[in-house]
């Protein structure tokens, strides 16, 4: 399953976004109005691999270059005139297709 997610990054005025593609579903327990924090995206320092922390899972992914770069365009109507404003450019995607690793935090004191 592919989920579109964007991440902002600045480059020469036009921000550059990236697609986050995940093999699976991102589910939310409770309906919450307003923006929700889904997870944290990090990059390894050494090899620039993206790491996504979703709930109690850690996903290791890789950066891929899109064959066709895409533009995120906003349609505006001003007095019958239609304007398209380029919000961002998408050149690459972050692909998380491997099986996620669980984060076990609640370890019993004594086994």
């Amino acid at each position, binding site marked *: *399953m*592919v989920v579109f997610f964007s991440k902002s990054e600045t480059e020469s005025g036009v921000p550059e976004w990236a697609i986050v593609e*995940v*093999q*699976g*579903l*991102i*589910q*939310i*327990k*409770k309906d*919450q109005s307003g923006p*929700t*924090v*889904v*997870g944290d995206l990090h990059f390894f320092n050494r090899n620039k691999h993206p790491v996504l*922390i*979703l*709930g*109690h*899972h850690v*996903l290791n992914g890789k950066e891929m270059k899109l064959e066709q770069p895409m533009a995120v365009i906003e349609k505006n109507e001003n007095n019958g005139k239609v304007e398209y404003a380029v919000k961002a450019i998408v050149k690459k995607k972050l692909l998380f297709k491997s*099986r*996620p690793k669980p*984060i076990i*935090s*609640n370890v*019993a004191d004594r086994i």
Partner: protein
Amino acid sequence: MSEYPDPDEEYELMYSDELEMMREVEDHVGPNPIRKKMNLVKRSLDFSSTPSNYPVTLNQDINIPSTDQVLTNNDNNSISQDDRIPSHKRTAEELFGDIGDIDFESLQLPNKKQKTEEESDFDLISKIIEGRRLRQMLNEPSNRIQADTKSFYNVKENMSLDIPSWPFMALTNSDGNRVYVKLESEDSWNTSLDNCSNELSLHASLASAWEEARKILENKTQVTNQIDEDVIQTPINENVDLWVDKYRPNSYIDLLSEEPVNRALLHWLHLWDKIVFKKDVIVKEPQQQNKFVKRTGQFQLTNKWKGKKETEVEMDEDGRPHHKVALVCGPPGVGKTTLAHLLAKLAGYRPVELNASDERSTEAFQTALQSATLMRSVLDADKRPNCLILDEIDGAPTQTVELLVKWCMASLKEEGKKKGKSHPLRRPVIAICNDLYATSLRPLRPISLIVTVNAVSQARLSARLGVVAKREHITINPRLLTALAARAQGDVRSALHVLSFCRARGKPLNIDDIENTSFGMKDCNKTMIQALQAIFAINDKDPNAALKIIQAAGEYDRLAEGIFENYLSARVDARLHIACETTSWLRLYDLVYAWILRNQNYSLYGLLPYCLSRCHTVLASRQPFRVKFPMQAQDMFRKKAELESIVSSVWRGSVPSVLIGRKTLLLDVIPLLPYLLSPQLRSGNIQLCSENEKKSVAICAGAMCDYGLQYVQQRTPEGLYAFVLEPNVHRVAFMENIDRVKTNPTVRQAIAQEQQLEIIRRNDQMMTRNCKKTEESKTTRKEKPKPEIKLPNHLQRLQPKAVEKSTPQVHKDFFGRIVPLSQVQKQDAVSDVISLSNVFYQYREGYNNAVRRNVRMRDLL
């Protein structure tokens, strides 16, 4: 005569005690009247059967005392006295047990000391007594000996150290003492003689007693004589040894079998000497051998063993003979077992026999083999090594024979390696069989020395029968003996049995007796082929031979099959009269046999051979006729089963819409099916066919689907792949001519493809039909509940919804104990931000949400 005591004499010795007892208890009824009766009967037989013998034996008995001294008379007296008081005798037995001879000698010793010089007769007497005792010992069990051991000279009565009152003769013994011996007067001598004669004329009194007893018996039973007499006489025969045993050969020259045969077996036994007795076998020089051959020139040709000896090495590296087992074969009754026993004894072995009556299972056989060949008899005084004789080995199961073979093949060197695990053969084994070519003996034949004992020649057999007859005091014409020998066909045993049977009947033999006696043959199995040959050949000598052979062969059903298979070619039969006659007899046979099998009543089983022998009278001819082995019936049965299985598989595979009875299927549908399945097509390519042809192919494919037929690719012996109809209805329809309606291989392939498509189409139809049905059923189901709710809206009441009570969740640990809530909460409190987050991730491996569309099979077709 000296070796074989007269039967009467023997009887005298055996039953002297009983006779005495009988005389005593004659008046009053004895404790066991039956036994008494038996004894009486025995006496009578001797009187009646051999009246001529009797006086002779009497004279003999009298002769002994009359020629000897007074002392023997006294002896006899003492015997009689002892015997008359049975209690005294009993005590003596109890006291001394079985040590008769010791007793005897110790008592004899002082006797000799005192008398040796003067009365040499004493020696003679003691010799006579000893001789008698020995003979008695030979003839009967030891318990009778006591009677003689006590018959010593009565020392006290006839001798004294003081001067006696009776007339005497003075003597000096070895110690220098004076001894006075009694002198008998003429009178006392006579009286003692009288005593003796009284004693011996006991028979006369017994005869009278027997006469009385018989009268009583006759009054009692009142059954007419002949049958009853036979019944009475039978127990007598049980006591007497069979003549076969009685006249068993005791030495090598007594053997009736041919000289080379005996010699071969004996030679083979001697080859074992090296390993058994640890002495070298003396192999004769060829020159000596030639000499021997010259001497016994008549055996030269038949002696196969001689030829073998020169060429083959007779010993293997272990010092055992090359052939480990001697396989003695021959017709029943020629003395194979006797030969084996006698030769084993002659060669210094103790024969141990294992025959068909013993257990033949592999384990039992193995233990028997080991015990017989590895052990040595402890009880036997002479401690001779064993020689195993396996009688009737052709009756043993194959596994047993294989075990024997394996055991024989094991060599001594292997034993050393294995250390006692296997015990190779170290003793000679003689196997005896009737049928050398029995299937179970196949493994044994190559490793064994085969010794064939042929039927005894008529001349030798009749000569031997003459000797036996002479010993048994039967006066018989030599011509009759020759006839008997011819009738026996070399079977010594049956000839002897017939002779003894005739003797037991008490009538003089005549030629008719011999011709009519049916020889009870042992182990005379005829094979089925022999019986069939007998059926198709005329036997001039014995018209009933065919019947006998049929009865001997058994397996009447196979014989009937054999007749059925051969009857058309047996004789020239232009008008089929013979065939009609034969079939009518066979029909009767079938009728009877079917009845027997249906009712499980075998009372008519005896009739079956007669049906077959009637066929013999019709079919027999003088020309040599090659009988075919009956295979057809079996063949046909197999074929029938095969075809029936084809029909039943078609029947089971056919679709319900075309399902009919099996018989109709077989008779009406299957014969026509091949025509339907071979449409006329111009080419194998369906696309090129006309509309009509396509239709016929479609019909063909439909029919194949209906009847569950299929073209299956099979590899032919030539390596090509061919389409074969499965199940093969062609075979049922046209029997063997499968090629009658043959379709082109390419056409077959086309049909097969069409059928595959047809099958898929049908399955698809079935699927859609099922879907429709389910849909229909769903709609009906939906519709149905509607009419049930008939309540108008205004009458309906709202049902209050039950409130679900949420029971407080109780935490339990592993053992089911309730954990206090505080503890659980405390644990929960530990959990951090990560586990509290509302977002979580569900991994879906291999999932892809690419665009999908359903494509139906019918769209492709």
